[in-house]
């Protein structure tokens, strides 16, 4: 059982709000970083393939 609590003061509420937005940002950044690493690997392999063809 839980009850509606009174609104938290701004200094205390701020850390929860910041936490939620940081979680969202971190998820997106980690995802984009993983995708970037994948794209870099594809680019490197393509370059290797092209170099092998040139030889």
């Amino acid at each position, binding site marked *: 059982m839980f009850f509606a*609590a009174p609104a*938290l003061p701004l200094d205390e*509420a701020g850390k929860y*709000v910041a936490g*939620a937005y940081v979680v969202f940002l971190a*998820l*997106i950044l980690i995802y984009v970083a993983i995708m970037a690493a994948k794209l870099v690997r*594809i680019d490197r392999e393509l370059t290797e*393939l092209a170099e092998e063809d040139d030889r």
Partner: protein
Amino acid sequence: MYSKGLAPLAAATAVVLTAALVLVFFYAPLDADQGFVQKIFYIHVPMAIVALCGWVAGGIFAIRHLRSGDASWDLRSYVAIHLSIILGLGVLITGSIWARASWGHWWVWDEPVLVSFLVTFLLYCVYYPLRFAIEDPERQARYSSVFAIAAGAFVPLNFTAVRLAQAYTHPRVLSETGGTMPGEMRLTFYVTLIGMVLLFVTLWKLELTAKHASMQLKRLRRQRAERREAVAA
């Protein structure tokens, strides 16, 4: 193939999400009951809506895959489900933070909305082991599509069941009749929702592009190896 329009889409996503953040922190009024903590609503609810829609979209793409036999629809379905799981994780974490700030608990087991979302999230976590336990690509795509359709049908059913149990759920802030949100809050919410939809579509296209490039590279390597073998013979 999948990268068409990706750059303007990414730019639009950045603009709308920036505008949404400005609206959230400088335009939307403070909630009379919850105060500043209610700002979590603007990130938590759009993420949940987009995650649920992404799972349903995954099911629709899976239907197209089974009907056409075209593997690209399976790829679309996989990426939509994968992205929705990431957003789903965000929903659970931000929901937990909101619950802690509002109710003093990180998780409340007798709250149907929270628990039903967790059940849906865990259901989709099964998708990965199911998909990657099958080596044959054709069987993998077919079995994954069947799962995506069944689970995709579960999402709206689950949502409807929770809505029908209104008496036991937390107050609705959005409804067909307008809900209880004032105009500024509603505008901010809709802009955030549009930003989240754009973000989902951008990341979906980005991952599809990367996966397609990776598949093309593998195909090129295979063709080269076959040519070499033919020359050697």
